[in-house]
């Protein structure tokens, strides 16, 4: 780290996401676990405080809580599932949305700066839960065979196309959905974080370790670019939380929809 002594630059890679146990010996207690646990505490604390004394005339805190709650309840759940049955899924969707949102935004919060969902396990488990839920409610509504037909045989398709349609629809509606759901979230968080690391570490390397005035100037610009990209990432983090929950709601909605 002494200026003027050139050293090799190691670009960030998958190993940048390896997290050490916070307490030696407790292997499972890593940074993403801590951040995720904190996010659960914050969400529960905030919404419990906002809804504890929920009244006809809301307090400021209640108003803020209602704003967040209504966003998921009305703009996501009701629009995608329909006003008849959406209330059943609002608790899961709201919890899911704020869990993903807080953990994504944590990547921008100083001192945390690590996206929980860049560890693919979190994305897998969220996607699997959504997958289990929408398939379960679909089967409960239409029966196993009825649900299979509902998901794989679109109405209005001629019978001779069915041998083609059924596998395609089955793969896209049953098999691929959890994969795309989890990988989209994971990859966005993973790539966004790597991008930031490249700009910030690269800028840092060029300024302090490349040993050239010209590169140091470029490094400053790179570092500033990194800050701009952090802004972009903040946007992506919110969007990804929204997309994940909207898709979950839509999968539920299409699973329980009457035959189209």
């Amino acid at each position, binding site marked *: 780290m002494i200026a003027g002594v050139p050293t090799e630059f190691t670009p960030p890679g*998958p190993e940048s996401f390896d997290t050490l146990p916070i307490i030696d010996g407790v292997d499972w207690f890593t940074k993403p676990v801590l951040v*995720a646990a904190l996010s659960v505490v914050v969400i529960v604390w905030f919404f419990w405080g906002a809804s504890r004394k929920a009244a006809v005339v809301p307090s400021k805190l209640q108003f803020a809580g209602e704003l967040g709650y209504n966003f998921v309840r009305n703009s996501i759940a009701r629009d995608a599932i329909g006003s008849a049955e959406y209330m059943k899924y609002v608790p899961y969707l709201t919890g899911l949305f704020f869990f993903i949102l807080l953990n994504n935004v944590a990547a921008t919060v100083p001192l945390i700066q690590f996206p929980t969902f860049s560890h693919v396990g979190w994305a897998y488990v969220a996607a699997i839960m959504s997958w289990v839920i929408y398939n379960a409610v679909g089967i409960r509504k239409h029966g196993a065979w009825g649900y299979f037909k509902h998901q794989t045989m679109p109405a209005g398709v001629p019978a001779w196309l069915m041998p083609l349609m059924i596998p395609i629809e089955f793969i896209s509606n049953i098999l691929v959905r959890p994969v795309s759901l989890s990988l989209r979230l994971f990859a966005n968080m993973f790539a966004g974080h790597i991008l930031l690391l490249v700009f910030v570490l690269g800028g840092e390397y060029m300024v302090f370790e490349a040993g050239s005035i010209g590169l140091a100037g470029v490094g400053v610009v790179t570092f500033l670019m990194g800050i701009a990209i952090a802004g972009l990432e903040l946007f992506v983090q919110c969007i990804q939380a929204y997309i994940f929950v909207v898709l979950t709601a839509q999968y539920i909605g299409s699973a329980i929809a009457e035959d189209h």
Partner: protein
Amino acid sequence: MLTMVLPLTEAGEEANPLLPHTAEIIFGFVFLVLLAIAFAKVVVPKFEKAYADRTAAIEGGMNEAKQAQAEAKAALEKYNAQLAEARQEAARIREDAREQGAQIMAEMREKAVVEADRIVAHARTQIDAERAQAVASLRSEVGTMATTLAGRIVGESLEDEARQRRTVERFLADLEASESARQAVGTDG
């Protein structure tokens, strides 16, 4: 930031980002279930109750307003009816008063006529009485005069005829004078 960038240097193995950590899957499941339960048991019921209360309050307010409007309308109708009744009453009273006034006037007129008649009749009887009295007194006076005249005629019969004639003429003149005096009394009465 450096702390989280530290690569795990052990054994130089390639980290595969697509392989999940088991602990994270378990925690992810636990956290999501916890959140769903927290929302299902506390947040959603509280908020939904507040929404329901809000809807009820708005609808209740609207019903109240509707009721108040209906009451106001009823009151207005009642007042209008009362007003119309009062107007009718007033008209009736005026009519009564007019009738009564006319009746009173007619009665008064009748009374006045009766009174006038009574006065006229009274005057007439008084006149008649006075006249009768005058006739009676005249008659007695004429008698007295006749007697006086007869005495005089008898007393002076022996004197000449001329004297006799003068006496008769004087008597007649007297008689005429008393007649005109009586006439004057009659027109006065």
